[in-house]
């Protein structure tokens, strides 16, 4: 039925199977859309957010997907700027995942703000001192870049490619992709950083506040660094999942291992920096405001010291060690474990830097309050996941995402 659209030389599942897949994921998507409409029509009272949790699940999801989408900019940076040519075999997928992550982030932001119809005020009445303004500008620009990076991929569809104009356009865009990749990398370094700055500049919130250089708190650099480290891990993870689902090998091991090695070293250096940052914050910054480290991790039912151990040791040091050793990268299980841990680690870091910042009482007579998202918040957070799965499904089916697929899976 749709065979004319499927790239030549690859095998895809039957349309019926594909439609069932679309139907199931589409149902989840619709559930999310319903929740989204509820939030827009009835307002944010549909959530479990409150005046103590002005930032909650959604902002966490935003920060997390952007960190995970960091694979796009960093792989692009490595491929086009540093010149790691092997990475061309995974760059398409990295771009697609990045595109999904960034579009999701924008969608979530549009749901999260109380007055979505005024969202553009952030550009029109921009306050240049606000980290969020920086985020909004860079995020939108980088989303544009990702769209431009994704567009030639779409044009490579078998049918579109036959149109000489599209063919040439796509070819020419590939030629100048380095420029966009460079732009993207530049923008990303900034907005990943400014997302880190979001809580880092809150000098009224000792848990999030960090000192730094010039206007940038240390979290600014830590966020960029961790996104660069863990974004590619997420790309590897999604590639592995796609391979599992399609039951095909899509990317050669040497490509994955190269990316994993670079990630590993990034992660290792990041975690050293993170430990130094934590140490300085715990021994100098926080005490100057009247807090011991353990004040942030006690007298409440959830936020205990285990979070620090899990984030820094189990999901930081451990995957870094696996990824920087060759035997670790070569072992399929170890590699998979490492990328999963890294992804959890960066997500947990974002959770802590959003939710725990809100949870820690600052006024001595205030108390800890716990938060659990409402179903509407969960559904709208699952919505981008469903959307991402669908977009990956469609892209994989109709676009030549994996250049090595044909070679790795010859049709007899």
């Amino acid at each position: 039925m749709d065979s004319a659209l499927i790239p030549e030389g690859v095998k895809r599942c039957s349309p019926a199977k594909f439609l069932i897949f679309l139907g199931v994921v589409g149902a989840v998507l619709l559930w999310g859309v319903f929740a989204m409409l509820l939030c827009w029509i009835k307002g944010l009272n549909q959530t479990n957010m409150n005046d103590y949790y002005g930032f909650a699940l959604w902002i966490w999801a935003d920060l997390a997907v952007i960190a995970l989408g960091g694979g796009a900019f960093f792989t692009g940076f490595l491929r086009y700027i540093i010149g790691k040519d092997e990475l061309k075999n995974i760059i398409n997928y990295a771009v697609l995942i990045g595109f999904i992550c960034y579009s999701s982030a924008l969608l979530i932001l549009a749901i999260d703000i109380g007055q979505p119809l005024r969202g553009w005020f952030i550009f029109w009445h921009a306050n240049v001192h606000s980290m969020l303004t920086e985020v909004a500008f860079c995020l939108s620009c980088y989303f544009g870049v990702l769209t431009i990076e994704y567009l030639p991929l779409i044009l490579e569809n078998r049918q579109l490619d036959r149109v000489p104009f599209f063919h040439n356009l796509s070819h020419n865009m590939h030629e100048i992709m380095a420029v966009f990749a460079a732009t993207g990398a530049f923008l990303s370094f900034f907005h990943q950083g400014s997302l880190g700055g979001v809580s880092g500049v809150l000098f009224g919130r000792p848990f999030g506040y960090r000192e730094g250089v010039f206007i940038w708190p240390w979290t600014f650099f830590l966020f960029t660094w961790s996104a660069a480290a863990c974004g590619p891990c997420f790309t590897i993870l999604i590639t592995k999942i796609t391979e599992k689902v399609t039951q095909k090998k899509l990317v050669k091991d040497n490509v994955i291992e190269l990316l994993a090695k670079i990630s590993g070293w990034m992660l290792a250096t990041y975690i050293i920096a993170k430990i130094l940052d934590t140490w300085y914050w715990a021994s100098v910054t926080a005490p100057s405001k009247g807090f011991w480290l353990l004040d942030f991790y006690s007298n409440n039912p959830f936020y205990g010291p285990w979070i620090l151990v899990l984030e820094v040791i189990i999901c930081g040091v451990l995957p870094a060690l696996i990824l920087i050793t060759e035997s670790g990268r070569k072992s399929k299980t170890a590699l998979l474990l490492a990328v999963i841990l890294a992804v959890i680690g960066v997500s947990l870091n974002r959770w802590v830097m959003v939710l725990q910042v809100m949870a820690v009482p600052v006024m001595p007579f205030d108390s800890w309050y716990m938060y659990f998202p409402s179903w509407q918040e969960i559904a709208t957070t699952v919505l981008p996941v469903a959307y991402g799965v669908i977009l990956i499904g469609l892209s994989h089916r109709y676009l030549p995402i994996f250049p090595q697929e044909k070679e790795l899976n010859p049709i007899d």
Partner: protein
Amino acid sequence: MNKEHNKAKKFGMVIDLDKCTGCGSCMVACMAENNVPFKADETNKLDSITWMRVYKLTNGKSFPDADFCYLPRPCMHCEGEHGHSPCVSVCPATATDYSHETGIVSQIYTRCFGCRYCMAACPYHARYFNWWDPVWPEGMEKSLNPNVSVRMRGIVEKCSFCYHRYQLAKEKAYYEDRREIEEQEYQTACTQACPAGAITFGDLNNPEHAVHELKKNPNAFRLLERLGTNPKVYYISSREWVRLAGDNYLRQEGKSEKN
């Protein structure tokens, strides 16, 4: 004319916690003056809009040594360093601003798009989000004050030190051909209502205003001074444990720290 003579004002409050009875008049005076909405159930204090909120502080001791003290908390109108208040600097749409003329942190309701970053930034929880559309039962909208606009759903609001009263007082002075307004001409609704007279409001920079002297009281303190928020609301308490409850102290930092 005479601009250099016209020193910038810095409006602030001194609240005498020895006098505060925790009666809540300030909260209601504020709500009535500023058209603050109410819901059928306001027992979830995490989504209940009270620009002025009275906290109850306890000394943590057992009966009969237990003691408590009420602490009214308006917006602190933090000055930070040179007007770099925690909330103003983070607002992405310039919907909240620090006035160097009055020292008042304003909130532009029609500009705010509800990102709530300012709420995340405020350690005093002085900022409130309109989670719901404000609804008044039929007829009760007649009691709304036209000097303060009603806020719509989806935006952040907070105490404005009754800024509209400052504007009205200035207008009046202008018509009467006066450059300056008198201390009593501009008073917030909570100050005016407090039956215990616990709240004093005025220009902290003006030696003729009562707050100027009161803030120098040896028992005066501000909330969370160590954060560098530089708030403009001072508290006075003769009880040491109350003064110590105004900020965070590490265990070994004895009472000597507090002075």
